[in-house]
């Protein structure tokens, strides 16, 4: 069977993440939530420790930790500290405390590197099913709330006047982010999840005239990066997660250089 091939499983797992991270990443970029993504993703390490301590599935542990982190940060917002300070504290605190907690679990043999940087090549068919389920849930919820999310992103007061509740839309994004982190930790790892959200979205920006195209292009760039990174890692025996992110970064650079050159050409025509 096709799924017996570990490379096929890896590619499919990566593509699922890319398809969900594309549109979700656009919101992360538009709403300047990059640090928020980091905080949620770093909490995943705490979730891993949790799942080993209570012998839960890793997905469940990470989902709970990510959800708690995301809602806590949302609530603390508006206090004494600016959002970036708050997130800088919580993101790194979650990571550090998670790493300390993991070190206490001496009875369990676990490969920390696999959770920090992902271990896409070790994805089994059950993982694959959970990953697709989670990723498609994210795509579905973003699709259903798309217009409301866009209005709330553009201006929360206009959204309120139009009968929407911006806090509910924020909650939708928080939830989607937590689910994505939970399913992506095996693929790219806690440290690189934010990269999969932001880099394809930022690379898609120069090619897009509407939010919808940007989301679609980001998903495509993410998919290409998964395939490219996977191929590179097989070819040169490099770590797969980082290779995928490196590939996406190259696409980002090329897309921005192309845009810059186009703009220069247009300007020189005007002269």
């Amino acid at each position, binding site marked *: 069977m096709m799924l017996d091939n570990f490379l096929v499983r890896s590619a499919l797992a990566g593509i699922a993440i890319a398809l969900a991270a594309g549109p979700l990443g656009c919101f992360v*970029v*538009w709403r*300047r939530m990059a640090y928020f993504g980091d905080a949620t993703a770093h909490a995943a390490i705490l979730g891993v420790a949790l799942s080993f301590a209570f012998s839960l599935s890793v997905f469940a542990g990470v989902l709970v930790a990510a959800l708690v982190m995301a809602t806590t940060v949302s609530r603390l917002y508006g206090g004494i500290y600016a959002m970036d300070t708050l997130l800088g504290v919580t993101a790194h605190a979650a990571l550090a405390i998670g790493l300390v907690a993991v070190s206490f679990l001496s009875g369990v043999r676990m490969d920390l590197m696999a959770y920090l940087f992902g271990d896409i090549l070790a994805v089994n068919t059950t993982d694959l099913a959970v990953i697709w389920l989670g990723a498609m849930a994210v795509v579905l919820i973003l699709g259903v709330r798309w*217009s409301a999310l*866009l*209005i709330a*992103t*553009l*201006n*929360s*007061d*206009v959204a*309120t*006047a*139009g009968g929407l509740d911006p806090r509910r839309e924020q909650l939708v994004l928080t939830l989607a982010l937590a689910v994505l982190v939970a399913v992506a930790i095996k693929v790219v790892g806690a440290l690189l999840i934010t990269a999969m959200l932001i880099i394809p*979205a*930022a690379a898609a*920006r120069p090619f*897009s*005239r*509407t*939010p919808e*195209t*940007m989301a679609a292009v980001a998903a495509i760039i993410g998919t290409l990066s998964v395939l490219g990174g996977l191929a590179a890692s097989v070819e040169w025996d490099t770590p797969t997660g980082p290779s995928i992110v490196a590939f996406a970064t190259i696409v980002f650079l090329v897309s921005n250089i192309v845009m810059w050159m186009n703009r220069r050409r247009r300007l020189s025509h005007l002269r």
Partner: protein
Amino acid sequence: MSLMRAHEVGVRYGGSRILRDINFSIDRGEIVTIVGPNGSGKSTFLRVLIGAQTPSEGRVERAPALRIGYVPQRLSIDYTMPITVARFLALSGNSDRTQTAVLLQRVGIADRANRQMIDLSGGEFQRVLLAQALLREPDILVLDEPTQGLDPPAVAAFYRLIEECRQELECAVLLVSHDLHVVMGQSDRVVCLNGHVCCEGTPTAVSAAPAYRALFGLDTEDALALYRHHHDHLHPIESNP
């Protein structure tokens, strides 16, 4: 019944009291202008009325199923968000293309439908925001300093347009403005706000009221007095009889 009503509304933010003891209501078809110095809580008050800010004291009532068209003081679109004028307007929930085209024509930017929002000038941007509010066919149009960045002829045209829309939609208009003399003439009622309602009434009554004149420093020639706050002034005509 009035469209919106505020009872003894107060707002605290941190330790400071931004608004206190505000009673206010607006009826269908009315044009009400709120004037007041910078930092007098005008925008906060609008946000309380549309439900974007919960008052710390008092309560706000809105007519059931009230449709609000809101134009915020500032709407900054992040450079990373690609969105055309047409797509932005479609987000108002009204996807009728002919209606959108007619409206863009009326606000004077018919040729901008396929432009990116971030490429618009300040004036064009304000018109798109107004079009967005009008597309909702509102019962009440709430405008927070809508003419910022417009030159004087454009300001006059903007208010004419609002007056036309009011007559067609039979909606109420509630606006915060700095264009005192322009706006006053068209308002049914003016509310002078400085944390509390200093005075209110017809434009003529308010512009003659000592509380208003003191607040805007109209009795002195010092231009800076426009921004001077007189928190402990006396009230020869008391608000909210």
